[in-house]
C-alpha cells in the first residue's frame, strides 16, 4: 500500500514574506505537508493589505491564497532566532540592505543555524550587480524576456502600436517561488552530507529560465519578437460567442482540423500535405479558419474538434475554471474559511497517488501560532 501521508510531513518552514515570491514558495511546500510558519511584524505582512479583496471585506484574496494552511507568528525585529532554530527551511525576501541589522544575512544565519536551509528570494537575487535593485512583477517580467514578447498572435495583429502587455497577476514572481521551492528541496536532499546551506533565488532568473527558448533561438540566429512569433496558423480564434485556442503540430492533427472544417476545397490542395508549405501559407489558412469559426459557437467547435483529436481549447474565465466539472472530479478546489466566508480555493497543481492534497485551512489570523519558540 502506498503511504498516504503528505510527502513533506514533518518538515518545518519559517517564512518571512512581504512579497508574492517568498510566500508562494512556502505555500507550495506547505500544501505538500510541511508545517509553514509565517513570521510577521506586529502590523502583519504587507501582503495582508494587497488587493484584490474578497467582496464586502478587507480580506486580501491574494494573501488568502498565498498563506492558506500556514500559521502566523508575530516576531519582533531581531527575534527570529527561536523559530529559525526549530525550522528546516527559512524562506526570506527581506531586502538585502536590511538583513544584517536583523541578523538575517547569510553569514549570521549560517553561523547560528548551521543545519538550516536558508532560501533567499529576491527580484534580482542576492548576488550580482543588480542584487539591490527593486523589482515588481512587471519590471521583473521585462527584465527576463517574456515582457517584451507579449502580446503575440491576434492581439498583436489588432493593436500593433500598443506597448507590450504583461502576463496576468504575479507570473514572474511565482516563477521565483517555484524555483525557491525546488532549491529548498534540493538543498534538503543533500543536507545529511552537506549540512545547511544558502540558496539564492532571483525571480528574474526563474522567469528567464521558463523563457529559455528565446535564448535558444537567439543561438540559432533568430531574435524573437512579439510580431513575428505568432503561430503561422491557429492561435487565438474568434468565434461567434468567444475565443478558442487552436494549435496543430502533428500531421494527424492537421488532418483532423481539415475534417473539422468540413474538408473545404482550399484544404484539399496537395501542397498543404507538407507541413513546411502549410507554414508558408499560414496567413491564408488562418483567414479561412477564422471565417469558418466566426459563425460557430465555442462549445461546438471544441467538442467536435477534440473528438477528432484536434488540439482546441476554450478560453475559460476564472468562474468557468472554478465550476469546471473536470476540476471538480479532480478535487482542484477545496472549501476553506477565508475570514470573509467559506469559498473554494485552489489547492495544488499536482497530485500524488491519484488523490489531491488537502489544505490545512485558510489564511492564518495574525499571531495565531503560539507554539514552540513563539511562546
Amino acid at each position, binding site marked *: 500500500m502506498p503511504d498516504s501521508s503528505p510527502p513533506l510531513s514533518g518538515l518545518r518552514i519559517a517564512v518571512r514574506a512581504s512579497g508574492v515570491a517568498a510566500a508562494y514558495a512556502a505555500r507550495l511546500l506547505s500544501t505538500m505537508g510541511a508545517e509553514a510558519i509565517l513570521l510577521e511584524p506586529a502590523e502583519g505582512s504587507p501582503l495582508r493589505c494587497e488587493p484584490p479583496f474578497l467582496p464586502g471585506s478587507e480580506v486580501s484574496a491574494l494573501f488568502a491564497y498565498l498563506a492558506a494552511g500556514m500559521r502566523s507568528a508575530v516576531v519582533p525585529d531581531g527575534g527570529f532566532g527561536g523559530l529559525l532554530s526549530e525550522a528546516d527551511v527559512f524562506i526570506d525576501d527581506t531586502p538585502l540592505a536590511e538583513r544584517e541589522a536583523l541578523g538575517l544575512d547569510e553569514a549570521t544565519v549560517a553561523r547560528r543555524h548551521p543545519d538550516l536551509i536558508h532560501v533567499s528570494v529576491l527580484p534580482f537575487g542576492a548576488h*550580482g550587480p543588480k542584487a539591490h535593485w527593486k523589482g515588481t512583477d512587471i519590471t521583473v517580467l521585462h527584465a527576463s524576456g517574456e515582457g517584451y514578447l507579449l502580446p503575440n498572435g491576434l492581439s498583436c495583429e489588432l493593436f500593433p502600436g500598443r506597448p507590450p502587455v504583461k502576463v496576468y497577476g504575479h507570473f514572474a514572481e511565482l516563477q521565483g517561488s517555484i524555483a525557491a521551492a525546488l532549491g529548498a528541496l*534540493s538543498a534538503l536532499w543533500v543536507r545529511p552530507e552537506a549540512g545547511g546551506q544558502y540558496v539564492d533565488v532571483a525571480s528574474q532568473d526563474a522567469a528567464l529560465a521558463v523563457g529559455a527558448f528565446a535564448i535558444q533561438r537567439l543561438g540559432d540566429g533568430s531574435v524573437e519578437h512579439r510580431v513575428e512569433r505568432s503561430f503561422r496558423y491557429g492561435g487565438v480564434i474568434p468565434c461567434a460567442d468567444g475565443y478558442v485556442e487552436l494549435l496543430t503540430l502533428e500531421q494527424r492533427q492537421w488532418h483532423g482540423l481539415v475534417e473539422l472544417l468540413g474538408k473545404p476545397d482550399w484544404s484539399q490542395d496537395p501542397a498543404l500535405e507538407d507541413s513546411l508549405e502549410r507554414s508558408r501559407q499560414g496567413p491564408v489558412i488562418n483567414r479561412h479558419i477564422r471565417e469558418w469559426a466566426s459563425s460557430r459557437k465555442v462549445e461546438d467547435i471544441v467538442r467536435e474538434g477534440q473528438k477528432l483529436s484536434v488540439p482546441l481549447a476554450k478560453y475559460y474565465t476564472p468562474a468557468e475554471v472554478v465550476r469546471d466539472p473536470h476540476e471538480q472530479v479532480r478535487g482542484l478546489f477545496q472549501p476553506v474559511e477565508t475570514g470573509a466566508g467559506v469559498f*473554494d480555493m485552489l489547492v495544488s497543481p499536482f497530485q500524488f497517488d491519484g488523490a489531491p492534497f488537502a489544505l490545512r485551512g485558510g489564511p492564518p489570523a495574525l499571531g495565531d501560532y503560539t507554539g514552540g519558540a513563539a511562546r
Partner: protein
Amino acid sequence: MKPLHGIRIADFTVHNAGPFCTPLLSQLGAEVVKIESAMRPDAFRKPHPVYGRMGPATFDQVASTKLSVRINLKKPEGVALAKRVVAVSDVAAESFRPGVIGRLGLGYEDLKAVKRDIIMLAVSSSGQSGPDRHFAGYAPLFGAWGGLGEMTGYADGPPIEMRHVMDHTVGMNSAVAVMAALHRRRATGEGALVDVSAREVASSLLGEALLLAAAGEEPHRMGNAHPRMAPHGVYPAAGEDRWLSIAVDGEAERQALREITGSADLSDEALSVWTRTQDANAAAECLQAAGIAAHASWTTPEIAADPHLRERHAIVEVAEPDGKRRAAVGVPMRLSKGPEIGIHRGTPKLGEHEDYVYGELLGMGREERTALEEAEVIY
C-alpha cells in the same frame, strides 16, 4: 556538491513541458537518461514549421545535460529493455497522453513490478483523471483551459496565448513535485505516482482571481494596470520599439517620480511624454536610484549579454559539437555548497550514451546489444 548526485531518471518525456523538468534536475546533479528512437525522434531533432523552424535545432535547452539512448517502444523487447533502465532508476518521467504509457506496458503498476519504490512522474495537459483527461494539448491550450489566457491581455482586446513559458512552468512545478516524492521515499521507502496537470499549473498562477470568482466576483483582464500601484505599466522610451516598465508604489515614490519628470501629472499619457525622451536603460537606473521599481523592456540579445545574469550563471556559455559558443539558460538558483550546478553537457546525439547505459549500467555485452540493434529494438 551537486545536491542530486546519485539520483537517476529514466526520461520518456516528449515535447516541452515534461522535458523541461528533467534538465532542471540534471543540472542539479541527477543523471537523466533520455529514451527516444529513430522512429520517433524528439521534436528538437526535426523541423518545427508551426514555430517557423525549418530544420532540426542545433542546440536544445531541454535536452542538454541528458544522456541519450535509443529504444523502440513499439516492440516488446524494447519495452523490456526500457524496464531494465527503469529498474536501475529512481524516477521514471513521461508526458504522453494519459493511457498511452500504460498501453505500451510501462504504466505505474508495470514499473513498480520492476522497481518497487519507483517514482513515476506523469505530465499531461489535463491530468490522469477527470472527464477531460484524454484531451490533447500544448502550452497555449493549458493557458486557455486554466484561465491564465483569458485573464491576460488588453482590457479591450482578446485573450492572449501563453507560449513556452507555460510549458516550462509546468516542468519546473514537476521538478518540485518529484523532489517532494523523493523526500517521502527517503522517509517511508515508498514510491509515488506524481500526476501533474498542465492546465492546473496554469490555474495555480491566478489563485487569487479564482478565489474571487468562487466568491461571486467577475475578475477580468486589465492589461498592464495594477489594482494598487500607479503609475504602473510599460511606457515608450526613446528609439524604435523601446519600452520602459515602471511600477510606482505609494505616495513617496509618486513624489519622487514627479521630481524626476518635472511634472505633477502622473497620468500614463503625461508620463509617456517624459519616457519618450529617455533612454530606457538610463531611465531605469535613474528611477531605481530614487527607489522606484523600473526596468527597460529587454530584448533577448540584451538579456544574453547582461553582466548581472552572467555573474549569477543564469546565462551561461555552452559549446555546440562544432565548437561554436552560444548562450544558454542555467538552472535558476545559486547554492552556497553547490557552485558547480548547471549545464555541463550539450545536446546529446541520438543514442550517444549507450556504451555507458547499456554497457556499464545494465551490463549488456556487445553481442546482446548488436542483436537488439539488428532487431530494431535499439533503434
